């Protein structure tokens, strides 16, 4: 009987993988200007040029591996685009399997995990195969998976790789740190953090040695960007503009469309403070929950509930990062995609509705009505405002969620978290 059930689930998972294959290859439009850019980097690397030294790159080094892999399959643009689509599909399927595994541990039904994952992918749309953000998003999920199994060093190593692919997975590091510290004390954290640092240095050091300035500029180019058109701050300025309170006008800048306004400069500068405060709030709430779990009278329950909290706060950290960042490109929604079906708690239904609506609105804004937004047409501007308000609302709901320890959970949500196995 057990084997029959297993076979049934194998068939279901394969069916979902085939559905993803169908959507990735037949429904989504691949290619686009960004993939063309990735191809250019790959061609230069293929001709023996060294990134950061021989040509400028605006991405961390891990991304270059992602760009180069499809080039090994095809060296013409059309073939590269197809190969890139399959590369994203590969990571998408890995993400699906990780979601299933994590969902099982967190007491989320496989149907919910699979359905949520697929719905999110459809809502995000073609941008999933037009950008490489799927890769760091799935790497982040891999780090959480390893962490949930108690393989802390592996988790930190994967997190370092993720951070070196796109910086955002780094926001999960304090959550890992707090969780591990509360579980096994400060000493248990040291080997894990050391692993993170060593892996990061292994990736960074050769590139620093080759061309320090070029490598550092790949990070500073992002941090020095002005207020991007789709950021929360920009949508506030556009709302003010539509109310006649302030003047704000989209402008074409070197990397993206940004917003020109008397308040744009100060908001861009202070966005780091807002981001810091927002993330600090997430970490503080998580710390409080971990402390409550540690003081919980139940035996196995705190360990079993730890994963639910970790998943919720990982999702919350990325939502806060997106909502407070001065750049909010449409592909950033992919960062949330693998973690989304794993969110649990009283507000799960609301989070699902909000995330799916926000994803559809993102797709509506880009690529469907981006020029309407640039022309500050009211409906397109309102779509952006609505999307960003929903993101903030989602962050508020996630932080307002009761700690997992306070919610009655079924005993099947057991974890294999080992205290400080290192």
């Amino acid at each position: 009987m057990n084997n029959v059930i297993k076979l049934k689930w194998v068939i279901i998972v394969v069916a979902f993988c085939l559905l993803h294959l169908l959507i990735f290859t037949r429904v989504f439009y691949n290619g686009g200007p960004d993939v063309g850019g990735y191809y250019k980097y790959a061609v230069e690397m293929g001709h023996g040029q060294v990134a950061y030294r021989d040509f400028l790159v605006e991405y961390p080094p891990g991304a270059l591996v992602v760009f180069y892999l499809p080039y090994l399959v095809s060296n013409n643009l059309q073939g590269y685009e197809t190969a890139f689509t399959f590369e994203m599909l590969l990571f998408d399927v890995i993400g699906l399997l990780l979601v299933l595994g994590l969902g099982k541990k967190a007491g989320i039904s496989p149907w919910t995990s699979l359905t949520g994952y697929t719905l999110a992918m459809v809502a995000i749309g073609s941008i999933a195969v037009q950008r490489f953000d799927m890769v760091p998003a799935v790497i982040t999920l891999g780090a959480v998976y390893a962490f949930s199994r108690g393989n802390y060093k592996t988790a930190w190593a994967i997190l370092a790789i993720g951070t070196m692919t796109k910086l955002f997975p780094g926001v999960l590091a304090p959550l890992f740190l707090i969780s591990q510290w509360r579980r096994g004390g400060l000493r248990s954290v040291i080997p894990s953090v050391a692993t993170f640092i060593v892996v990061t240095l292994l990736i960074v050091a050769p590139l620093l040695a080759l061309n320090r300035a070029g490598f550092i500029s790949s990070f500073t180019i992002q941090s020095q960007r002005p207020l991007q058109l789709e950021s929360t701050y920009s949508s506030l300025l556009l709302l003010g503009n539509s109310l006649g309170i302030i003047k704000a006008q989209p402008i074409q800048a070197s990397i993206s469309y940004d917003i020109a306004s008397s308040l744009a400069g100060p908001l861009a500068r202070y966005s780091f403070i807002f981001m810091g405060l927002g993330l600090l709030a997430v970490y503080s709430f998580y710390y409080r929950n971990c402390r409550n779990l540690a003081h919980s009278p139940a035996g196995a329950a705190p360990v079993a509930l730890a994963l639910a909290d970790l998943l919720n706060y990982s999702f919350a950290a990325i939502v806060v990062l997106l909502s407070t960042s001065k750049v909010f490109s449409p592909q950033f929604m992919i960062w949330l995609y693998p973690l989304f079906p794993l969110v649990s708690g009283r507000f799960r239904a609301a989070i699902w509705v909000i995330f799916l609506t926000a994803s559809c609105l993102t797709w509506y804004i880009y690529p469907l009505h981006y020029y309407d937004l640039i022309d500050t047409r009211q409906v397109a501007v309102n779509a952006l405002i609505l999307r960003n308000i929903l993101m903030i609302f989602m962050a508020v709901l996630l932080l307002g969620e009761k700690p997992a320890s306070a919610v009655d959970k079924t005993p099947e949500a057991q974890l294999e978290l080992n205290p400080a196995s290192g």
Partner: protein
Amino acid sequence: MSKDSYRTLLYRTITALGVVLAFLLTLIIPQHMRESTDWSFQYATQNFSQGRLTVDGITIGLEGAEAYKYSGLLSQYVLIGDNLWGLTEAPGYIFYLLPFYYIHAPELGNLVLAAGMAAVAYLLLKRLRGEKTACLGSLLLLFTPVALAMMQRGYADSFGAAAFLSMGGGLYIYYCLCSQELTSRSAGILLFLAWIGLGCSVMINYYNALVVLVFMLHFVYMSARSWLAGRRRAVVWTAVWTGLGLAIPLVGLLFYQNAVFGSPWRFGFQYALLPVSFSLSFLRPNIKYVTVALLVGFPLLTPCAAAFFTALYRKTRLLMPRQETEDINDTWTKLRWDILLLLAGWIAAVYGLYLNYEWTASTQVVGIPFIVMARYYLPAELPLTVLAVLWLGHVPRKLLLAVTILSLAWGVVFFAQSALSYPVVLSHSPYNPLASSLPENSNGMSNMLSIENPNTTTGSVRV
């Protein structure tokens, strides 16, 4: 004072304050004439107040020139006969507005309707769930961006059409829920008022007839059930009250149509020159253009969809034998099937119709303000709010609080955006001395030339 009485008083006070706040908001923010509807109805009110249901070419020329002076158009006035111009829209709202126009306070027309709509919503929701939900629902009903924006536009008929429909429909559902507890006279009066409201809504907007048809289907179904159950006398009386309530506005409409178009069966839309037809081929472009406008204009749209599917799921589960006793005190399981389907039918009649509307589907609407597209869906606001608020009654308290605050703020901000994002129209009076002082058969040439456009130096305007 007992705790219950105190709470009742508190919720009613909050609702009353909310209604006053909504009134103040619509009065404080300056009103601009936006679409041709506003202009056409302003001049129609002026003409009707002088007993002129139709006007001649000279008069409409003068009025059109005057509207043009302020960048307005009279697109809803069309040629219906030999030198005879009439309104393409249903006339009910103008007749309703006349008393307020006579006392020089046309903006009060919508405020009175808003108060009535909030009161009916309160009554209905109190019956369905309780005072707290009633308070929440009434406030969210008024603080929807589209409701506030159309409430402010004193001459446009959208709010009037939605308010009469909401009052009539709300009272009808209230009657269905508590007819057993009322005396036959009270029930009859309630039913009469409900059908008067529904009939008046058709007199204001012809398309509301589709929603009224849904109500009539419900009424026929319930009457047939009662008839078969042997309550034949009661059925006859309800039919009499219904017939009376519906006949008064509809007979009025037929008289108007006879007077204006020469036959009671001819109506204004038959003369319309604008792209106002309906076809399934417009569904796709409408979904593309209108969806975001609807999400912005009706923040409760998503909770309403969630509510409908939750209700359907819960009630379907209850049909299964093993689920008989489960959730017996749940709102959804207590909500009668016929009421749920009536609410859904009401929404479907409005959304199903306007999602196939030619005008909003045409490319000319890309980039125009959301209110221009979303206002057509206002007649479905009451059932949408009722379902959404019943759903919100089940969510955790923190979520309820967050959604309420967000919805209220949303309403105010986007109402302000809608009101302030139009070009400012020069101050003008709806009591226009030029057009109103015209003799019936004046050639009007000298008057026509005397209308000056402040934006031009030459001084004359062609229409």
